[in-house]
């Protein structure tokens, strides 16, 4: 069995008396694709933000490569080897695709072009990011996240808001990355996709882990569908 690359223990985060995340504990094994699912408001993005230092937990710890990274600032977390994308693609809209990528890593135009080809980005290195279609912005954001030296990739709803063609492209990209042995955590709502590609599925509900396991195990668990349908 592979090591746990990322572990979170008993994370608590509340906003004005309401718990967004409560007693949240889970781990991500090296070389696997783990998907975090759960109904709206379950705390998935909050968990991501706690891991990447955008939010500070009220309680609990985050461990990456056996080091305690709780409370580190986002740029420090990134430097430990975690790369992430956001629910809404965050590209530098007044800068070219090339410059967007260069912020992640110094590289020649040839390497940059390769990075873009890998994600099937359909425009040029010179195109200004703000002029791209949303789908291409998403692809650019992912290419940029891949260029940053990292050991863990965190993707927050990568397929949200993109057209079916780009959605298919994203799925093949993730399948390729899986073949390369990368460790990826993703938040996703596209269940077919989640179930087909994940090694492990973690179900969050009301801020805490409801259950986790292989896709088949999770689908069989009655409580999961109940969580989605409400009380």
């Amino acid at each position, binding site marked *: 069995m592979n090591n746990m690359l990322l572990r979170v223990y008993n994370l608590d985060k509340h906003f004005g008396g*309401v718990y967004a995340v409560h007693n949240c504990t889970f781990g991500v094994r090296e070389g696997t694709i783990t998907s975090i699912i759960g*109904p*709206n*408001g379950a705390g998935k993005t909050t968990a991501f933000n706690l891991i990447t230092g955008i939010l500070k937990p009220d309680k609990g710890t985050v461990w990456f490569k056996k080091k305690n990274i709780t409370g580190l600032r986002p740029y420090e977390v990134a430097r430990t080897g975690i790369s992430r994308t956001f629910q809404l693609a965050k590209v530098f809209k007044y800068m070219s695709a090339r410059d967007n990528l260069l912020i992640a890593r110094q590289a020649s135009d040839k390497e940059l072009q390769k990075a873009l080809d890998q994600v099937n980005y359909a425009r040029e290195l010179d195109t200004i990011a703000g002029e791209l*279609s*949303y789908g291409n912005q998403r692809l650019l954001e992912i290419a940029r996240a891949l260029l940053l030296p990292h050991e863990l990739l965190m993707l927050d709803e990568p397929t*949200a*808001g993109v*057209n079916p063609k780009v959605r298919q492209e994203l799925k093949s990209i993730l399948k390729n990355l899986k073949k390369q042995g990368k460790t990826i955590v993703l938040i996703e*709502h*596209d*269940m*077919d*996709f*989640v*179930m*087909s590609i994940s090694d492990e599925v973690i179900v969050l509900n009301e801020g805490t882990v409801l259950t986790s396991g292989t896709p088949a195990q*999770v*689908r069989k668990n009655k409580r*999961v*569908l*109940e969580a*989605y*349908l*409400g*009380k």
Partner: protein
Amino acid sequence: MASSLLTIRNLEAGYGRLKALFGIEMVIKPGEIAVLIGPNGAGKSTVLKSVFNLCDIRKGSIIYKGKDITKLPTHERIQLGISIVPQGRQVFSNLTVKENLEMGAYMTKGKELIETRMDEVLSHFPDLRQKLNANAFSLSGGQQQMLAMSRALMQDPQLLLLDEPSLGLAPKTTQELFQRIQDINKEGTTVLMVEQNAKAACAIADQIFVLEEGKVALKGGRSVLKNPKIKNIYLGGHGH
């Protein structure tokens, strides 16, 4: 009485470049509670927004009481008797309950008319009647949601659109809220409601539409939730 209050035909809509609905077909009968459920990103809110002209409609038509309102601007739709309670308990926090309700009646002329209507609306929400002079921000989440709803009711709409009314509310509060929705409906207001809490919403629904990826995947009465396809819609598994 016409058999349809609201008919949506082949609706394709979205936000700028983002397309969310790919051909919605729906018929809502007068006097019923219709509920829209479905997984995240299925397009439920977009359907409501289309009825109220808050997003970009590319194709299809929306017919209300026999009139094609697809291209009608929002304020004219209000005048036709459609009211919306948007997501997230949107009340004017620094105004009192009474002032919020008065804001809801901005198109009504005549102080007496407004007061009469306020009285009628508050008969459903006795909690609010007690807090008429309290500032909206001091109300609990559930009370704020009821205030938002009351405000929408001040125009005495025939069609009330609710966008995730139970969002962020405790289960007990949700039950109370849904009870009130039923009361309002009994007095003749047709309700079209988008909900995350499928179970609670379906318990009071007359008609249920299950949305998936911008289309109506299932529809029916309360037994719809027992349909085995529900699992596939919410948890994937038909492999397409």
